């Protein structure tokens, strides 16, 4: 049944009128996430406040075979929280409570709509923080972070979202809440929590999350090193890692981004700098002191033009300023950009940067780079003018070519943004048919009717369809009797 007035009446009976968005203008705000190239309006947006409402919404949609698209703050970068085939969008923003803070066990239980940074604010005074720190953390929801398995600058040392999720409650397509994991580690059985994190809503609607809280480190040091070239900066990165130092963050900006920042807000970068390397160390004070000295010496030995160490919190904020302004600054040099987040092995950074220059020249598009150098997670912004269809076409071709280059170097299609609709067709670069088929069957077990966020995460591909049979090993001949 389509979403008609009777269906809407039933939804209204569940959540009340003030929790429905029906008007075309209202739904417009929900037609895309931050990847604005992909648009699809839901037929109706519903904002539940309680688990039982979520259950009844799912049961209704299941009965009427209406697709469900979950949404948090809508800050995703892969076209995950939009409705390509319409249906019901379930926005979790009203379920944003902290349900429990358990300091002795260093964990918290929260609802999915809670904003990432709010949790850290809640526990900071007691000496803790929530480690996953996507750049969107001031606005993105923890449910969204779970859905995309979000990363961030400090994931180099602390790990990504999945390393900080102990348990989930999920309302699956059956409408029944499922309790996975919990405060106690390693419950026997398959690690379904681990599979659900990063499943982009295909597992169901997450209604509560048990997260790990991390101790605020005793000391922090932030270092900014300027280099003439990306190659030189990359060598410094390798030297720091080879010295056994795992910084909390290791971020790099290229010359295009540096010039864009200086043309705008300005962060005091000299004009001849070809690369900025931001190094942050944290941990026990004595360890941070010694590692900072070493990181400074290693940067100088690799030809740093200048090295600055922040002396206090204000200086630290200043050093981070350029990094945080980067994406905004690009707006000054190009009206639009494609953003991707492929990964290469860290040691391949100089190689992929050279490859990127070649791709940029071939397709006549500008790349601007700001990335997590420590884990090889690129974030090229591929600039184009959206008034020129040919430029968009060239930008897409360059994007495609760069993805292939990253995979050829042993990398990954997406390091932290997720697949959504944007990268679904690229999964075949990283996975063989048998691998895709395994994921497809996994999804079918979780959601047999395919109601949960259809069209996302997995491609439409022969290996993701009924009737596909992976090639099996050839058994020996002549053994049969």
């Amino acid at each position, binding site marked *: 049944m389509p979403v008609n007035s009777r269906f809407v009446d039933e939804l209204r009976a569940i959540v009340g009128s003030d929790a429905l968005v029906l008007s075309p203008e209202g739904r417009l705000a929900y037609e895309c996430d931050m990847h604005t190239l992909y648009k699809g309006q839901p037929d109706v947006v519903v904002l539940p406040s309680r688990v039982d409402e979520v259950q009844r919404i799912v049961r209704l949609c299941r009965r009427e075979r209406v697709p469900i698209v979950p949404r948090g703050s809508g800050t995703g970068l892969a076209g995950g929280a939009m409705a390509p085939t319409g249906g019901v969008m379930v926005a979790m923003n009203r379920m944003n409570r902290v349900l429990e803070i358990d*300091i*002795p*066990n260093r964990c918290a239980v929260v609802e999915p709509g809670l904003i990432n940074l709010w949790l850290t604010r809640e526990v900071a005074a007691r000496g803790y923080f929530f480690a996953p720190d996507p750049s969107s953390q001031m606005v993105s929801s923890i449910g969204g972070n779970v859905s995309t398995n979000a990363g961030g600058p400090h994931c180099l040392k602390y790990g*990504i979202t*999945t*390393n900080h999720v102990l348990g989930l409650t999920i309302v*699956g397509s059956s409408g*029944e809440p*499922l*309790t996975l994991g*919990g*405060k106690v*580690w*390693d419950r*026997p*059985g*398959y*690690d*379904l*929590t*681990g*599979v659900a994190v*990063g*499943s982009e809503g295909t597992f169901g609607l997450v209604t509560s999350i048990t997260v790990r809280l991390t101790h605020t*480190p*005793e000391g922090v040091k932030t270092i900014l090193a300027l280099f003439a070239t990306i190659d030189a900066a990359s060598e410094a990165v390798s030297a720091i890692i*080879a010295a056994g130092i795992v910084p909390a963050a290791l971020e790099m900006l290229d010359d295009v981004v540096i010039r864009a920042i200086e043309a705008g807000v300005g962060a005091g970068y000299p004009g001849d700098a070809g690369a900025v390397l931001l190094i942050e160390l944290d*941990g*026990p*004070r*004595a*360890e941070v002191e*010694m590692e900072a000295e070493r990181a400074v010496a290693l940067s100088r030995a690799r030809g740093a033009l200048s090295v600055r160490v922040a002396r206090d919190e204000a200086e630290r904020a200043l050093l981070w300023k350029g990094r945080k302004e980067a994406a905004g600054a690009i707006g000054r040099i190009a009206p639009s950009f494609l953003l991707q987040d492929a990964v290469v*092995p*860290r*040691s391949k950074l100089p190689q992929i940067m050279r490859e990127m220059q070649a791709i940029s020249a071939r397709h006549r598009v500008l790349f601007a780079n700001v990335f997590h150098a420590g884990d090889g997670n690129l974030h090229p912004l591929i600039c184009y003018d959206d008034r020129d269809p040919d430029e968009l076409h060239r930008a897409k071709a360059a994007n495609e070519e760069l993805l292939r280059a990253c995979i050829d170097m042993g*990398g*990954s299609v997406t*390091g*932290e*943004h*997720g*697949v959504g609709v944007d990268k679904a067709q690229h999964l075949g670069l990283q996975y063989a048919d*048998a691998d895709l088929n*395994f*994921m497809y069957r*996994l*999804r079918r*077990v*979780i959601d047999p009717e395919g109601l949960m966020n259809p069209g996302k*995460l997995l491609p439409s591909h022969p290996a993701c369809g009924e009737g596909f049979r*992976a090639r*099996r*090993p*050839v*058994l*020996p001949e002549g*053994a*049969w*009797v």
Partner: protein
Amino acid sequence: MAVSVRSLEKAFASLVGRERVVDDPVKLGGATIDGCVPRFIVRPAAVDELSGIVALACEERLAVIPRGSGSALELGAPPSRLDVVIDLRDLDRVLEYNPDDLTASVEAGVTLGALAKLLSDRRQFAALDPPGGTSRSLGGITATNAVGPLACRYGAMRDRLLGVRFVQADGVVTWGGAKVVKSVTGYDIPKLMVGALGTLGVLAELTLRLHPMPEHEASWLASCDTLDAAGTLVAAILESTLQPNRVEIVSRGALEALRLGAAVAAVAVSIASVEPAVAAQEESLRSLVRANGGTLNPASPGWWDRYGDVVMSSRVTIRIGTLPSEVARTVGAVERLLGPAVAVVGSAATGTLHALLSECQVQAMASAVGELRAMLAPFGGHATITRGPRALREAIDPWGPTDPGALALMRGLKDEFDPHRVLNPGRFVGGL
């Protein structure tokens, strides 16, 4: 089409070579698992060979048990049937080691010790230290989710496994994850394989995230007069800004097994960093211990090896998951339920404890485990018999109860990926 025993032997031999198929009754008898004697032991030396073996087993509806070093063959319920033991110890190549990327790809039969030896030249390590340590295979550590004291700082295999190649029950070779430290492309399949006891696929290759080995490490033993004092000390350490890499609780019985005298309980701590940072943290640790009425002494050399040996030398091991805040109370409950002979060790930081006994009276122990589970259940704790005689694991479900909703999903996965119950049949949670 059915195959006779004779031709099965030929078929396996044509896949891996005659010398890699064992059908000698004496040798097969030595490979008995829980009283089940296999009809064949097959030792593949390459992933393709492993794939062929599993495909053949599936075609013939044979039951397969994959094994690595063989240290966890009593984990789980007794197998419902057994035809082929696949011995993975010849899948022992390190395929890639990229020190600059802090990653390594290994075949599943590579032992932790062999990998450690390779990595130590570059002062890196896998940061895994399950009981039985160096002789265990990385595939086995993954399949059983074996965990040791270092999980306090570094997490466990689920935090280490970046990519995995496995052979599905029908023989199809499948890859999940990536070879880089960060990837969210598609479902996180490596997570599904950790702790799954090879019931969804036989592990063939693993890509691991590595860590730099700290320059300096020191270990101490803080002796306490009461279990409660040990619990308070643990809480104080975990609340402090110390960055220990191990915080273990050691019960009276464990101290006796280690011949460490008369304390009621102890807390074993190690701190690793650059030397000045270890020295500074030692001072903080010393004052914490003093404030909590304990006595701090440096641990003797080789302490952590002996500690692991104690876990491996027991006849019965129960792995307990409890809350860090409930660690002392849990140790107390175990001592009360299992008697003075029990030794309990484990991570106070993660709440993973091991209760160890050198003897087993089946009925008494089964009811004690039941009571222990009842005590742990209100806060989501659990107790799994990870080693013990078959009779014990028949008298009580070694895995304990599982949430029915989650179990239904697990059963759905098993039905999808191993409908004929070829892989480790009957051993896993819920009889899967």
